[in-house]
């Protein structure tokens, strides 16, 4: 019940019933796949930063996979999935016409009201929700810049899935874009005062981005990754330490204020 008093961010609704969807489009980028699904009830309610719980088709995996919304247009949602284990690999192998069960949208959303300048910072598969966010911010007239970091050439293949006008890429091995981490990109950017920062990626990246925003005097939000079982607030499996105590990434999050989490 710890969630009852906790503040969550963004104007969003959550809906946990299962939607039986069809895959309407698949694009592959190395070990990544961008799946487009026909999911009208999910798409209608979706806000950037929210996620869905996806059942791995074909059996053999007990738990659903939490996957953030990569895009939502009309009656379609898109998911960007990285083949990391047996379950996610099977999801990247889906074809147009295949059935897939998803539940959502779930969790909190990125606040976007009265944002004029936005800096979107992503690491690896954590970049995924930032496309949905960029779409919404751009449509609202905001100036959007994105800085994405990847480990190597293989993981940087994901960048091909994105459609963001001002998108900068760094790889740790220097194979694509700037050599180094996303922090090296940030150092080279001219960031306007009052820019709102949105971050999503592995915890070490989030911690580094936190430090950078403090130093720059910027504020923003982060979407956290976590191991989840239920995805709907019941099991308390996905907690993160915050200034408000331990909170559930699936329920009070995944979007938190950047300055309140200890990832």
């Amino acid at each position, binding site marked *: *019940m710890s969630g009852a008093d906790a503040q969550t961010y963004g104007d969003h609704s959550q*809906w*946990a019933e299962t939607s039986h969807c069809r895959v309407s489009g698949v694009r592959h980028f190395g070990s990544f796949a961008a799946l487009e699904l026909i999911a009208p009830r999910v798409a209608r309610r979706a806000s950037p930063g929210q996620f869905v719980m996806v059942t791995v088709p074909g059996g053999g995996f*007990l738990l659903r996979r939490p996957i953030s919304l990569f895009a939502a247009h009309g009656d379609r949602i898109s998911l960007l999935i990285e083949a990391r284990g047996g379950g996610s690999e099977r999801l990247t192998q889906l074809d147009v016409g295949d059935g897939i069960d998803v539940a959502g949208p779930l969790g909190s959303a990125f606040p976007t009201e009265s944002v004029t300048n936005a800096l979107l910072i992503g690491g690896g598969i954590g970049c995924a929700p930032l496309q949905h966010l960029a779409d919404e911010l751009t449509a609202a007239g905001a100036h959007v810049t994105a800085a994405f970091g990847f480990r190597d050439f293989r993981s940087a293949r994901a960048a091909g899935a994105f459609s963001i006008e001002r998108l900068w890429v760094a790889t740790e091995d220097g194979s694509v874009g700037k050599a180094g981490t996303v922090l090296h990109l940030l150092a080279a950017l001219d960031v306007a005062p009052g820019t709102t920062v949105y971050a999503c990626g592995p915890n070490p990246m989030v911690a580094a981005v936190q430090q950078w925003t403090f130093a720059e005097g910027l504020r923003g939000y982060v979407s956290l990754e976590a191991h989840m079982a239920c995805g709907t*607030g019941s*099991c*308390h499996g996905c*907690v993160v330490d915050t200034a408000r105590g331990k909170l559930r990434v699936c329920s009070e999050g995944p979007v938190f204020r950047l300055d309140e989490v200890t990832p």
Partner: protein
Amino acid sequence: MTDAPDLGVSLGPLALEHPLVDASGTFDLLEYARRYDGDYFADFPYAAYVPKTVTADPRIGNPAPRVSETPAGMINAIGLENPGVHAWIGHLGEWAALQQPVIVSVGGNEPEQYAAVLAALEAYLAAAPPGTAPHIEGYELNVSCPNVSSGLQIGADPVATAEVVAACREATGRFLLAKLTPNVRDVTEAGAAALGAGADGLSLVNTFKALVLDRQTLRPFLGNRTGGLCGPAIKPIALRMVAEVAQTFPDTPIVGMGGVMTGQDALEFIACGATAVAVGAANFTAFEAPQRILAELRDALEVHGFSSVAEARGVALRA
């Protein structure tokens, strides 16, 4: 055409509409209601609600990560995170619309801590104006959590189990279940101790103490190092233990659980002597899991030619 099977069961003094309840810690009523378009209280699928374990004092639980998938199951080490019984009571009015009985899961380190939770709840119920409190009709004493330091020490020790039950028996006249751990040589020993000390029934099994390693580092993956294994992987062991308990204590109300994913699974627990069946990890697989499992149980009873749940109870135990 035969009539639909009679799903009603009597769990001690509790008349349940059907045999399915949720396993403590796997189903949060208010979280379901938040994510549902209709009135979830009116559409509540279980025959009774067993909320997440509450303790006398607040607990922050174990460090992350707390869960991991395993072959045919999952492991968890949440650590009984809860706000403590007094803060918890402050939110009970939010469930008042629930028509089904509530069986409160209670945890602690010492008998006095368990009894303090019951005393606080009994005082709350005695003082609550009509219609403002949920229908708390029983307690499940969690003497078997493998993820807190005291859990197994109580549940694996019949003397300590009896002390907890006896302290709670003094604190309430309501239906009292003791939830047994499977991490023992003979599960009937703790069962006998609990019943001897005044428990009205037994629920089993809690999770199996287990270990999962990080694939890269070969170090324990969970923040608590060890955790509790649940899911379909444990079902055959859970069935065996329910059968042993049902055979040893034939007239005792039993809530059977462990890896129930389908109506057939639920029927198998009933066949092994369970009065009611708790659904745990399956709640994590789909929002509609309880409704699906109940529909499947109804079908499975018909397919097997049973006219009621009572008729199916214990059929696996016959010589």
